């Protein structure tokens, strides 16, 4: 079996008394669209926060494949130079359940901030607008326009991000995380608050991310028709535990999953 892009092993997170994640293990295959589902409060966002370095798991490993080997992202958080940004630089990007854009900056600036690391950050060349600075800036602007076009926001480059409609803000957030050139993108409820038409467009976009832009997608979503439509692998979380991990057909008929969503006699 090929080594998966992301391998999560025995993740355990406590918040005071509650076990938010209880020995969670799963894998995300390279080039797949994998969905993470579960009832409210199951711990899905907590998994994302661990993957993207916002929470440090108390136990367990998060292995991101790197060449032949793998890098443990939990380790990236430790030490003097460690931190969330190191995890992001390892190639994981994310969006947030409650959108987090740079609201008072323009749409294009949002995408330029995401390319911070590709730009020429030397103060002198910036002050004097040396050729190397201008070249890096122009490339970043082109890349930003490319992503605006991909998500269908080409006309909004010079609008304020906070002034966009809700659906467009969600798309901009996806474009922004793609501008960091990630290997894995984690989308936290990207369809929340979208109308049916926008949800269809989103499904197209997520498919395109995988097939055209060669990025692996991990998505949290409550909209079941969207999840069943786009993903080839589904992980179900309930009370901080993985209760099922299979393809959509199998998940739809899994009694444990049905029980978790609908509640069953013996659980009540």
């Amino acid at each position, binding site marked *: 079996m090929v080594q998966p892009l992301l391998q999560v092993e025995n993740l355990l997170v406590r918040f005071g008394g509650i076990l938010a994640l209880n020995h969670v293990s799963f894998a995300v295959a390279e080039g797949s669209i994998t969905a993470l589902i579960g009832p409210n409060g199951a711990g899905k966002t907590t998994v994302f926060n661990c993957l993207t370095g916002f929470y440090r798991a108390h136990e367990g490993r998060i292995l991101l494949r790197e060449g032949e080997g793998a890098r443990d992202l939990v380790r990236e958080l430790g030490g003097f130079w460690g931190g969330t940004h190191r995890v*992001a630089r390892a190639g994981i990007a994310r969006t947030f359940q409650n959108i*987090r854009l740079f609201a008072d900056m323009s749409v294009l*600036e949002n995408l330029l901030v*995401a390319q911070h690391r590709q730009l020429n950050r030397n103060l002198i060349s*910036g002050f004097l607008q040396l050729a190397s600075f201008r070249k890096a800036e122009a490339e970043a602007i082109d890349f930003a326009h490319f992503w605006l076009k991909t998500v269908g926001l080409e006309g909004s480059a*010079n609008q304020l991000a906070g002034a966009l409609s809700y659906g467009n803000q969600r798309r901009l957030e996806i474009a922004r995380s793609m501008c960091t050139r990630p290997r894995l993108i984690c989308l936290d409820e990207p369809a929340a608050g979208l109308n049916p038409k926008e949800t269809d467009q989103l499904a197209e976009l997520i498919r395109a991310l995988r097939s055209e832009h060669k990025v692996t997608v991990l998505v949290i979503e409550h909209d079941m028709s969207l999840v069943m439509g786009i993903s080839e692998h589904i992980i179900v979380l309930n009370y901080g535990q993985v209760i099922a991990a299979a393809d959509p057909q199998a998940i739809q008929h899994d009694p444990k999953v049905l029980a978790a969503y609908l509640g069953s006699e013996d659980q009540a």
Partner: protein
Amino acid sequence: MAKTRLIQRILAALGAGIIAFILVGPIMGLKIEGYDFVANWTSPLTLAAFVCIARLVLGYVPLDRIRHSHSDTAPRQTKRSPVQVAALGVLLVVLAASLPFFASKYWISVSIIALIYVLLGLGLNIVVGLAGLLDLGFVGFYAVGAYGYALGFKYFGLGFWGALPTGALMAGLFGAILGFPVLRMHGDYLAIVTLGFGEIIRLILNNWLDVTGGPNGLDAPPPTFFGWEFKRAATQGGVPFHEVFNLDYSPQVLDSFVYLVLLAAVVITIYAVMRLRRMPVGRAWEALREDEIACRSLGLNHVTIKLSAFMMGASIGGVAGVFFAAYQGFVSPVSFSFFESALVLAIVVLGGMGSLTGVVLSALFLTMMPEFLREFADYRILVFGFAMVLIMLWKPRGLVQMRRPYFGLRGN
């Protein structure tokens, strides 16, 4: 309908008046004479009446509408070409540079102080306006620059030109020292710690008698120009400026010189900050102000970004301090009280956080205004506070709003 609203307003006004009377009545109305209380109700009653009328008037001011009238800051393609903007800038600079040739010594010194505050405003604008870190101890860096010059001269014979970069560097270093412990703080906590930092610096300067001279302060030498001094008779071995150029001696030349160098520093700083807003560092500062969590998720190291903002702002404050010391010829701790921090913060907030034009204009306004209103000197702080309240009501984001840079389709 209109009638009931009028009655409501009158009732609200009466209520406010009664509350005011209850609050101030015992304090203003009861006086102790000997062992007795003497009631004097006229002054609290006048005050209550005043509150009552003010409340009634306030009821007719459409506060909500004013508060929600944000002007649009979205980027626009400017009608003016870059050449025109540059020409306008050059014209303004030339005008400002010609001031010493016709203005009196008095107005030159007023302008020097105004420009020092412009510099301070520009420095704090980076920290508060761009990076969104509320810093109430900015005067600390100003003091580091000023004392850096005075102490450097006293102990190492440091001259003005050497003091400019060293002052900037030292203040930047202090910015980093302050930056490290406060990296995890936000908002109110950050404000309180920075406030303490500013006070600590002032207290050290005040109490470390052996080194800083304590409340007596220290002398700072006036600047020189290629080694030529602006004095009537040169100190040992020196050459006075007026002899080199065969001019009559005039004490105004020194001030004019300080003014011109300071103007150059201000122009360079304005250019630098304008560039910074279109550079990765400046954008990262603003992104940090907007959303720190999103920044981290994009791979930005919020620690270095915060530190760089603190250091950059502090160095500009340090340069302002060197100019202040050189111009005054003397530094003492009283010049670096909390009031200075508050004034600079007011400059940034009134001008419009982040907006360069706004900061420059409000710095000029707030430092020049007291000169025009000499007769009202006693009411200066009152007018000041009143202006702040009005601005906060009318334009909560400051007089001039920062407009985002516009990006064309290809490059620039």
